[in-house]
Structures are given as C-alpha cells and as structure tokens.
C-alpha cells in the first residue's frame, strides 16, 4: 500500500509536467491544426534562460522564472512570424508546417549544443528559495520532493488561470471562436493574426515555465526536446485541441508509465503506454476529449 501511494505521487509529479508542456501543443493545434514540434525546443530554451538568469545575472529565483517565461513567449512569437507566417500567407499544406516545425526544432537544439555544449547542468540548490533547500517532506512512508510540490502548485495555478482566461474573457472567447472557425470569426471582426500571436505567446510562456521546472526536477540539457515528445503523445491521448483533454491525457499517461515501470518493469513501460495509446486512437480517434478527428498529425 505504501508503495502504491508512493508510485501514485511519482506518477502525478510527472503528469503535471507533461500537462504544462502538452497545453502548448494543444493550444496551437486548436487554432492552426498542426503539431508544433518546435515547442519542445522552446521548452529547452526556457530551462537555459532560467538557469543563466539565476546563475549569471544573479537575480532571485522568482525573477529568473519570470524572465524565462517572457523570453520563451517572445521566442515562440518570433518563431511564428519567421517560420509559420510565410507559410500561412502562401496557404501551404499542413505537412509543410510540420516539416518546418521539425526543422526549427533541430536548428534550435543544435545551436545550443554548438554554443553552450552538450554537458548537462543542474540548478544550484543554494540559489533557490529556502523552501527548496530542506529535506523532502514525509508523511509516514510517503515522501514528496519539495520541487514536486512547487511544480504541482505552479502548474495547477497556471492551468486554472488559463482555463478561466479561455472561458471567461473576451480574448479567450476570441481564441475559442478562431479555433472553431477561423474564416467565420475573421468575418465577425476577430483578427486571426492577433489570435495566433496570442496563442503562441501563451504557449511559449508556459513552455518557459515548464522548462525551468523540468530543469529543477532533473537537469538542463540540449536534448530535452526529445523528452517533451511524451507530452505531445499525452496531448494526442487526451485529444489534441482540448485543454482539459491535454491535462487528463498527461496525468493518465504518466500514471500508466509509472505503474508499469513500478510493478512490471521499465522495459515494458513504453510498450504498454503505446499499446494503450494506439488502442485509444483506434476506438476513439479524436482522443479522450477531442472534438475533431480530421487532420490529426
């Protein structure tokens, strides 16, 4: 029982990180109907921004966290302007968007390897707020890492705010309308370009936060974007384009992974996770909460 509870906590702590990353994939997909594979590289950049703001600029952790989120939001928007907008203007097929995204991802990853180097880095504990410096919290046999608690709180707050924003504000309604039908909402006076920039900025900002949190939980290294692929799978699992779906998919995928590797063996983990994913897509091609089965990339 102790072990079960501990594995449940382990799974949830991975799930919320997946969720923060998956939301970025889902938001862009809901508007532009393509999977932005450069998202993982933006997450990686966020981790580096946070790391260098903390260690080189010497700013407090909260400021470094904010800098990372702002920097990646900017980069995501620049990426949209430079890489995707020219394609949109020419009405290029969706496949071109995906290839461009992959190219951008490879470009960003290798730029970091070439300039900063491949050696992993860790956030120095002494520069983090005092909350992170103590021993892990214990309740009986159950242990929870301090970083995990922080990740949970930050992720829950961000995701709650995002849902409130999407459901209850005018801008949020604009995003929803554009996701539903870009042409019709443009006719109603919603500027699609503005909505797209907004979506990339929100996704980018969340990416920066996810990157810093991921870097604190594990390490900061250039190949991080490969791991964020899991969060893309979670987004598909939950239903691409749906925010609650991304959340649910992330937590479910993380729990499946953790329980398979905890009770069976690590070798079976991905095997099981993907069998469930494929089974899910066969039965319900739009994912758990997705609405649209077309164009699933």
């Amino acid at each position: 029982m102790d072990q079960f509870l501990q594995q449940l906590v382990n799974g949830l702590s991975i799930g919320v990180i997946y969720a923060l990353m998956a939301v970025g994939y889902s938001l862009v997909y809901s508007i532009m109907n393509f999977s932005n594979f450069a998202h993982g590289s933006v997450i990686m950049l966020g981790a580096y921004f946070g790391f260098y703001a903390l260690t080189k600029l010497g700013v407090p952790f909260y400021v470094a966290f904010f800098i990372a989120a702002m920097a990646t939001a900017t980069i995501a928007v620049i990426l949209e302007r430079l890489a995707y907008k020219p394609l949109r203007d020419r009405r290029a097929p969706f496949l071109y968007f995906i290839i461009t995204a992959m190219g951008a991802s490879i470009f960003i990853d290798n730029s970091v390897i070439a300039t900063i180097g491949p050696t992993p880095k860790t956030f120095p504990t002494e520069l983090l707020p005092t909350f992170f410096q103590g021993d892990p919290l214990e309740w009986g046999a159950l242990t929870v890492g301090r970083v995990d608690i922080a990740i949970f709180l930050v992720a829950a707050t961000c995701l709650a705010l995002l849902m409130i924003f999407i459901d209850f504000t005018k801008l949020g309604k604009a995003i929803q309308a554009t996701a539903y039908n870009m042409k019709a909402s443009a006719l109603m006076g919603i500027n699609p370009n503005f909505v797209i920039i907004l979506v990339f900025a929100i996704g980018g900002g969340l990416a920066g936060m996810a990157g810093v949190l991921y870097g604190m939980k594990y390490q900061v290294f250039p190949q991080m974007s490969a791991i964020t692929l899991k969060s893309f799978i979670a987004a598909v699992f939950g239903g691409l384009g749906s925010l609650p779906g991304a959340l649910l998919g992330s937590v479910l995928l993380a729990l499946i992974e953790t329980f398979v590797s905890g009770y069976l063996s690590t070798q079976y983990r991905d095997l099981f996770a993907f069998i469930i994913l494929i089974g899910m897509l066969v039965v319900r091609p739009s994912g758990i909460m997705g609405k649209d089965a077309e164009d699933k990339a």
Partner: protein
Amino acid sequence: MRKLLCGTLMAAAALSLNAQSVKIGWFGPETGDSALWGQAELATVQMMAEDYNAKGGITVGGKKYKVEIVAYDDKGDSVEAVNVTKRLISQDKVVAIVGAQGSGEAIPVAPIVNEAKIPLVCSTATNPKVTVNDNGSINAFVFRACFTDPYQGKVAAYFANQKLGKKKAAIFMTIDDPYSTGLSQFFKESFEKLGGKVVAEVSYTSGEKDFRAPLTKIKAANPDVIFIPAYYNDVALAAKQARELGIKTLLLGGDGWPSDNLISLAGKSLEGCLFVNHLDFDGAAAKPMRDEYKKKYNKNAELNSYMVHDALAMVVDAMQRAKSVEPVAIQKALTTCDLQGITGHIKIGPNHDPVGKEAWLIKIVGPDMKFQEKFAAKD
C-alpha cells in the same frame, strides 16, 4: 567526421627531413553523451605526442620516429566506431590504435583489428568480451590497460560485504548497456558467493531522466547498500531522486562514476558514497600528469586521460622492445607487456588483460573524492 593532426607534429615534420614518423590511431566520443571523456582522451594523447616529439621523437631500434596521432570521433556509437576503425586501418595506415573507451564500441571493433592485424589497446573498455570471445578464443590483436568488469564487480561486492558488513544489496542498472548489465551480473555473483543477498534488481533504459518508479521498488525491498553500475550523469540523477524518495542507503558504484562533473551534478546526494576506480586521482603516481594536463588545458584530467596515457605508453613500450614499428611485431611485444603505468602495474596475462592490477576504493567527501583503500586481485 573530423581528422586531427597534431600541430607540433607538422612543425616537427617540417623541421627535419630524415626523421620518420609513426602513425598511431585514436578513436572515441568527441560528441554525444560521453564526449567529456572522449575529449579528455584526445587531449591526453595529443599532449603525449607533443612531449615525445619535443624530445625528437621516440627511439625504436636506434632510429628516431615522430609520433603522429590520427584521431576520429566515434560519437559513442558502435556503427561509427567500426567505420572509423576501418578508415584508420585502410586509409590512414596506422600501426596501432588506442582508445575505444566503451565496451559497446570495442567489442564490434575487435574482429576488424584482428583481421587487419593491427593492435588495439583499449583505455577503459572493461567488459570481458572485448578480449575474449564467447567461444573462449582470444582476440589476438586486442589488449587493454584497465582491469575487467568481473574483477571490478568482485572488488565492489567484497568491499560491501566484507569491509562494510552489508548483507542485502539492491542493483540499479542500465538495461541496454553491456557495461552496466555485465558489471551488475559480476557484482551479484560475487556478493552472493560471499553470503550476501541481492534483494532487488531493477533497471532503466539509457536516456531516461525519471527513476522514481524503479527506485520506489528498491525502497520497498529495503536494502542496506545499492549498487549503481552506471555513468556519472545517470548516477547523479539517480542519487538525487533516491534521496528525494527518502532512500538514505549507501550507494556504491564502479568506474563509470569518476568525473569532474559528478559531484556538481549530484550535489549533496552522494555524500559518503563509494566507488571502485582505476587509480587515486590525488596520488603521487598521477601527480606529474595531473599537473601537466591542468597547466596545458586549464581543466582537471579525467579518469580516461590517465587510462589512455597508459594505453599509449604500452604501445610505445612495445615498439621499443620489439625494435620495430611493424603492427605484428608490436602485437607480439604487447603480449609480454610488463610496465609500470600511472594507473598501476600493467602485466598482460594470457587473456590480454592486465593481471593483478590494483583497484582503488574512493569515497566522496564534500566536494572531493578521497582515496580509501587499495585492492589487489584475489581469486
């Protein structure tokens, strides 16, 4: 793929027309996960070649030869290692090769050097299959400067059981790496032979970053020592996550641990933990090279620097004793190698492995790696 020639060597070649040069190949990972160690090896062999050439070269059979290092990046990949070895042999016509730091690269390369009859001296490839094939035959042209995994596993098991009095061990290994699975197996055999019990054997796949699920399994088995035969980066991650799960057990490791980055990555989570090493970094034998390396590159020499130093020294020594730079003559001389290296006494045995080479137990104390105890082979 990048080809590197020693700068000094070219200068030296221009200097004297009558001095001949001898080409020695090196390959290892200059990029990828173990780039840190590959780069350290390359820096070392280049430094050594410069030192040899500064004295006018090495004297073999009364003649002076300049040492030319031909280096290729194998990216820590077995396919790439095979490609660069073929290139070193057929295109660059090297007389001997050093490097091949990972067993995963050294094993596929062995049949190629055997067929081409070019001696290969591995720096840190510790898996037994590097020199001895599955059917018991010896790879005639493959040698190594390091001790092997069965020996290393035995030392770790002996130390844990006999010296520290640990009875219940858990093993945490990389399932897709022959170094890790091999070392686990040898540790387990020795530990059980000594009367200990292995209570949990769990694994992860290389490239993973979250070990909490398998570590929770270890925690439930309640061992009194955890053996982690992995490389430094994974060790740092595993140690941190183990401590976060409230596992306070002593962690024990092998020669994948020592690295300048280990402690900065792991923080306090490895305090008091122990690993088996090929030498004492702070010892007198290592000092001249440690100082020279530090002065030249402004970095600390890695374990691989010392290992590849001894590998190249073995080749040079073999040439001098054979009075020849012919690959077959070098091979013959290597079989009778009896050399005092930085990492200990290297006497090549019938399996082409050093016999009776000491292993060193190192303890992590604060930011330092402190030498604890020395072990010689016991059978």
